[in-house]
């Protein structure tokens, strides 16, 4: 990994930690649109019990929970992408 990558990755983790602190908690565009229509009510279903529901970690309270969840998620996305990209590149 070149130096530019390492610096960029460091900035990504700083962004991940700051995001829950800075983010707006208003509903997003799709949720807000769904609120307007009778036909959308009561449809949403939770089929999977996710390990980090709503970007929180069980046993940690408040914003810290979201910060930890984001750091875990960012590391996870990095690792999964790296693994898949390397495996795919090797297959060729």
């Amino acid at each position: 990994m070149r130096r530019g990558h390492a610096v960029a990755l460091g900035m990504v983790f700083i962004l991940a930690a700051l995001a829950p602190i800075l983010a707006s908690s208003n509903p997003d565009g799709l949720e807000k649109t769904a609120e307007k229509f009778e036909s959308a009510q009561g449809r949403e279903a939770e089929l999977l019990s996710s390990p980090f529901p709503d970007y929180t970690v069980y046993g940690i309270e408040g914003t810290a929970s979201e910060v930890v969840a984001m750091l875990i998620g960012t590391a996870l996305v990095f690792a999964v992408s790296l693994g898949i990209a390397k495996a795919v590149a090797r297959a060729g």
Partner: protein
Amino acid sequence: MHIPDGFIPLGQAAVYSAAALLFAARSFKWVREEFGEAPLLATLAAGIFAIQALNVPIPWGTSGHMTGGVLAAILLGSPWAGVFILSIVLLVQALFFADGGITVLGANILNIGVISSFAGYYTYLALKRRVGIAGASFAGAWFGLVAAALATAVELAIAGTFPLREGLLFMGMYHAVIGLVAEGTLTALVVTTVLKVSPEILPARAREVV
């Protein structure tokens, strides 16, 4: 604009999943044949996951976040970069964070990965010479997000969850604003910053296209 489980019936969701799988597979081919820089792809994927958590407030008590497919496409010089990265980001979000449903993962990949990346990247290419890199990045990212939002509205209308006209109207309106304050602005900012500060981290082919 991640669609949750329950908003699209299983049969329709399966059709979107099959289509998304074809596009995701084609993006794997792009990685294998044209782009082997795994650490750069992974860094960009992690960055897009992080930025998607940064919801920016917009009027009407609503918020929205950047989605990133167009950014990836511009930086790496191919819309398949956006498809590859967003497929993985959306998969992790659905499996681990209940952000976007698992049965509708294909629909979300089609909208936020495929449609956004292609619509946005080709808008960027068409405008680049006339308005410059910053302006074209802004316009491409804006259009990519709005195109994804409208596609989502059409799918949800077919599903019977949203009425077609009002669904298009509200999804279009909210995401037009999110596209201005988040997707367009941040994409232009990141593209111009990377080019200025460290263009060498980009692959040679992407530098040419940029």
